[in-house]
């Protein structure tokens, strides 16, 4: 009888629970429990279910039909040309959007980090587009990008004397994507705030030391600011890549993927397959390919991070 064994044992220091752990060792688990529950039900469960669905054909009614690798074969063989187009478009967007946003954010954060009057006003102005509801921004840009819209009115100041015609952004397969990318450059707010916080954390004496060594403005940026900011740059790079692969609202509202699929993004194609054509299995397969692309790029970034990211207090 284990119970009596336990009781008769002379110096059991604390009461042992079911699996031999004390209350003090396990009570912390109760704090984490809500997250664990949510994770199992709303993240892990759907995650594996979606993996299963990606091997099937199902239109929400009738039986689920097992297809094996057929969905993936159709997507990856290039047979579905719209999917190929959506991968190309998304890559196009990411390649220009991510560096653009990081560079602009960095420059703006640098300016805002100086002692200037009315800083709250400038910060809010630069942050505005990032906190404006997606639909509102999209509809607004639908106007801005019209042939006689706000952007072309500005461009014409330069282009008219040169005799060049400003592009019909949304009506042309060549210019629709650049139009959306230009629009995306307005959402620098969050990245900028992270940089701003980072800049404020750089110890002043590093700049003083650099000045004593005769460094000019660029020397200080290159040898102090950039190395000290690499953790923030890395963080925002990872987040921006993950986020930009999931671009959706702008294309949905402004172009609906057009003209001629020129702005058909991966997520938009996923949405159409899942919730317009109700091809649940096929949409899940697209989701998994999207997931693997993001996972792959994130892992690559983490692996290369060791070469260029510098964490203070973690010296080699």
């Amino acid at each position, binding site marked *: 009888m284990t119970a009596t064994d336990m009781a008769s044992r002379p110096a059991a220091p604390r009461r042992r629970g079911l699996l031999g752990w004390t209350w003090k*060792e*396990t*009570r*912390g*688990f109760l704090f*984490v429990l*809500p*997250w664990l529950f*949510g*994770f199992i*039900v*709303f*993240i892990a*469960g*759907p*995650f594996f279910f*979606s993996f299963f*669905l990606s091997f099937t054909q199902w239109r*929400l009614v009738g039986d689920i039909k097992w297809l094996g690798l057929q969905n993936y074969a159709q997507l990856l063989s290039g047979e579905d040309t719209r999917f190929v187009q959506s991968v190309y478009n998304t890559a196009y967007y990411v390649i220009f959007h991510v560096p653009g946003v990081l560079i602009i954010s960095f420059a703006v954060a640098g*300016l*805002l980090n100086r*002692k*200037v009057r009315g800083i*709250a*006003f*400038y910060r*809010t*102005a*630069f*942050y505005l*587009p990032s*906190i404006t*509801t*997606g*639909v509102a921004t999209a509809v*607004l*840009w639908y*106007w801005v990008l019209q042939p006689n819209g706000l952007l072309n009115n500005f461009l014409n100041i330069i282009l008219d004397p040169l005799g060049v015609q400003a592009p019909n952004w949304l009506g042309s397969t060549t210019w629709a994507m650049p139009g959306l990318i230009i629009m995306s450059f*307005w959402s620098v707010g969050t990245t900028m705030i*992270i940089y*701003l916080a980072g800049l404020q954390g750089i110890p*002043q*004496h590093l700049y*003083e030391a650099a000045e004593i060594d005769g460094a000019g403005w660029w020397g200080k940026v290159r*040898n102090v600011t950039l*190395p000290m900011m690499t*953790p*923030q740059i890395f963080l925002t790079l990872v987040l921006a890549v*993950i986020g930009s*692969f999931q671009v959706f609202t702008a294309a949905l509202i402004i172009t609906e993927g057009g003209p001629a699929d020129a702005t058909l993004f991966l997520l938009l194609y*996923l949405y159409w397959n*899942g*919730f317009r054509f109700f091809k*649940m299995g096929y949409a899940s397969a697209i989701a*998994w390919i999207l*997931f693997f692309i*993001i996972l792959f790029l994130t892992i690559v970034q983490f692996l290369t991070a060791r070469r260029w990211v*510098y*964490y*203070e207090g973690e010296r080699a």
Partner: protein
Amino acid sequence: MAQQTVTVEPSSPMGTPGGSVRIRTPARIRAMRAGGRVATYLVLWVGSFLYAIPFLWMVRTSFMRLDKLFEEPPQIWPSPWIWQNYIDMWETGPFANWIVNSLILVALGMFGQTIISIFVAYGFARTSFPGRNQLFVLILATLMLPGHVTIVPKFIMFRTVGLLDSIWPVALPDLWGQAFYIFILRQFFLTLPVELDEAAEIDGANLLQVLFRVVIPLSKPAIATVAVFNFINKWNEFFEPFVFIQTPEKLTLAVGIRWFRTQYGTEFQMLMAASIVAVAPIIIVFFFAQKQFVRGIALTGIKS
């Protein structure tokens, strides 16, 4: 080189950037600095104008008469000035419903994400239990997982239990803490000295009392930052409400304003007015919280 040893220096009370020692600077350098300041302001003015102008354009459009929108060249200042657009907008769509739905979503989201995340982060930062580190790695892993991968199974799941076309498919998954906020808060809690917890425990406080009397009061900036993020994200949330809710009356504001576009051709002036109403609370919150916000992000050591 940045990698050189960093000497500990007594922090100056002023913390003035740009030379803590006052030496008379030569006139040439002073002139250069003045020039630099002018350039800084110039770039800031042009930049913030460029970033604010789409928004200002939105404000302008919200006061215009629909037919005036198509004039060439475009009106800069609305004439006639139509306040009526805001009233029309209010009466055209189920606008009050959208605001209420958005507020419910924000309230539930902030309870589930900010408040629950505090508890979870505390568990990870301040207690130890078997499997703690493994679970924390799991949380970090979910940060990499795009939420959209699970949209299809979630749709099927909520359809099966009959909750589609309501706020619940959007709100229910939010009630259990949010990985990014848990991460930020844990990092912050780790910076607080453990001795405080131990002293409170010696005085007979249990874990909850330590959390409420020691950890939360010391973590206000970090919690406020997370709360502001949370508010903005929930108020603007688009994809999930868009997929899960169909009935116009059940939509949230962020998705509902799209309605002005589909129903009547496009009532741009009303759509812009609705957008202003949707953005205004966030602008106000941000304008007043921005200083604490930046400080909060700096404090949470978001980099590590």
